[in-house]
C-alpha cells in the first residue's frame, strides 16, 4: 500500500505539515517494501485551487492513502472521488506517524476538517 504524508521536509525525520495542499513536500511511503521517496509539492505555490491540483497529482501517482493535518473540502472531494483513503489530524515526526499508521492507530476521516483557504495562512 502506498501512502503520501504532507511533510515540512524531505526526510523521515521531518515533521508532518498541517496543510495538505500547501505543504512543501510529500513523503511517499510503501508499507509493503518500506521504500520511501520525498517529492516536491509543486502545488504549494499555486495561485488558486492548490488543494485540487495537489489531490490530482497524488491520484495520478497511484497513492492508496493520504495522511495530513488538515484537508480542505476541494482536496477532499477529489481524493474521495479517486477512492483514496484520507487520514487527517496527524502531527509529529513522519517516521512515528508511519509506525502509528501501521499499527492502525489512525481512523479514516469522513469529512473535510477545514474550510477552503485554510492553508493560505494558518496551520497551528
Amino acid at each position: 500500500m502506498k501512502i503520501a504524508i504532507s511533510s515540512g521536509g524531505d526526510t523521515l525525520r521531518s515533521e508532518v505539515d498541517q496543510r495538505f495542499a500547501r505543504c512543501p513536500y510529500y513523503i511517499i511511503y510503501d508499507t509493503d517494501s518500506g521504500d520511501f521517496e520525498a517529492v516536491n509539492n509543486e502545488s504549494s505555490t499555486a495561485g488558486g485551487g492548490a488543494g485540487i491540483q495537489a489531490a490530482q497529482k497524488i491520484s495520478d501517482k497511484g497513492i492508496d492513502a493520504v495522511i495530513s493535518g488538515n484537508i480542505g473540502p476541494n482536496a477532499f472531494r477529489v481524493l474521495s472521488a479517486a477512492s483514496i483513503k484520507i487520514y487527517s489530524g496527524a502531527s509529529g515526526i513522519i517516521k512515528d506517524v508511519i509506525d502509528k499508521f501501521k499499527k492502525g492507530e489512525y481512523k479514516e476521516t469522513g469529512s473535510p476538517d477545514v474550510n477552503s483557504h485554510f492553508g493560505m495562512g494558518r496551520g497551528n
Partner: protein
Amino acid sequence: MIISVASGKGGTGKTTVAVNLALSLANTRLIDCDVEEPNCHIFVKPDIESRRKVSIPIPQVNDDKCDGCGRCQEVCAYNAIAVVNKKVIVFPELCHGCGSCSYFCPLKAIDEKNKEIGIIEAGRKGGTDFVHGRLNIGMMMSPPVIREVKKYIDKKKTVIIDAPPGTSCPVITAIKDTDFIILVTEPTPFGLNDLSLAIGVVKKLGIPSGVIINRSDLGNKKVENYCAEENIPVLMKIPFDRRIAEIYSGGDVIVEVLPEYKNKFRDLYKKIEAIINNKK
C-alpha cells in the same frame, strides 16, 4: 465624455466626488464600478428600475459522452477541474469562464451553463441615470461584473465612473477606455504614497488625469509639491469641514445640502473639458 474617479487609497472621498459631480451636471449617467463595496446608491438613493444577473459560463460535463481522458484538466489554467478515476470534477468558484475546456474536449462532452456571480441594478434620480454592480459574497472575481456594468456607458451622456480603490486589475478594468481620470487623495504620507501608485497606473494606461486634494488642510504640502513635479494638475481642493463630514456620514449629498458647492463641481467639469480639448 467618460470621466472615471479613482484613488490609490480608499476613503479619500472618491465616491463623494463622483456623486456630487454627477448631480451637479445635466444629462449624466453615474456608474458605480466599485462592485465589491458599491456605495454611490447610499447617497443618490435612486429609484431602481431594472435588475439583472451577471453570470459567467462554467463547464457542465455530459457523463454519457465523457471518457475521462483528462484533456480538460490539462488545459484549465485555474485548477478548476480535476479528473480522477476517469471522472471529471468541476469547481465552479475557481472557474474564470474562459471556455478552453469545452473547446478542447475531443468528444465534445462539455457544455457550458451560467453561474451567477453578481447583479446589476439601474435606475434614475432626477435627471441623472444610475447604474451599479454588486459582486456576490464569497466570489473572488470582480472584473467580469465590472465589464458588464461598463456596458451601460452611453456616449451621448456625461458618464461618471466611480472606480474601486487600489491599483490592481479591478481598477484597471474600471478606468481603461475612459477619457479622463480624477484621482482623489488626501495630503498625508498615506495619501501621497497611494497617489504615486495610482499615477503609475494612469501613466501605464496613457489617460489624461488630474488630482483633487480632499481634507486639504489636514496634513502637509507634499502632495501638492509632488503634483507640481509630476506636472499633474490639481483640479480642486476641498478643506476639512465638519459640515461635509456630517453630510457624508448621514448619507446625504453635499450639493443638495450646500448648493454653493454645485458651482465648484461645475468648474471642475469645465477644467476637465478644457484639458481634454487642449490634448486634441
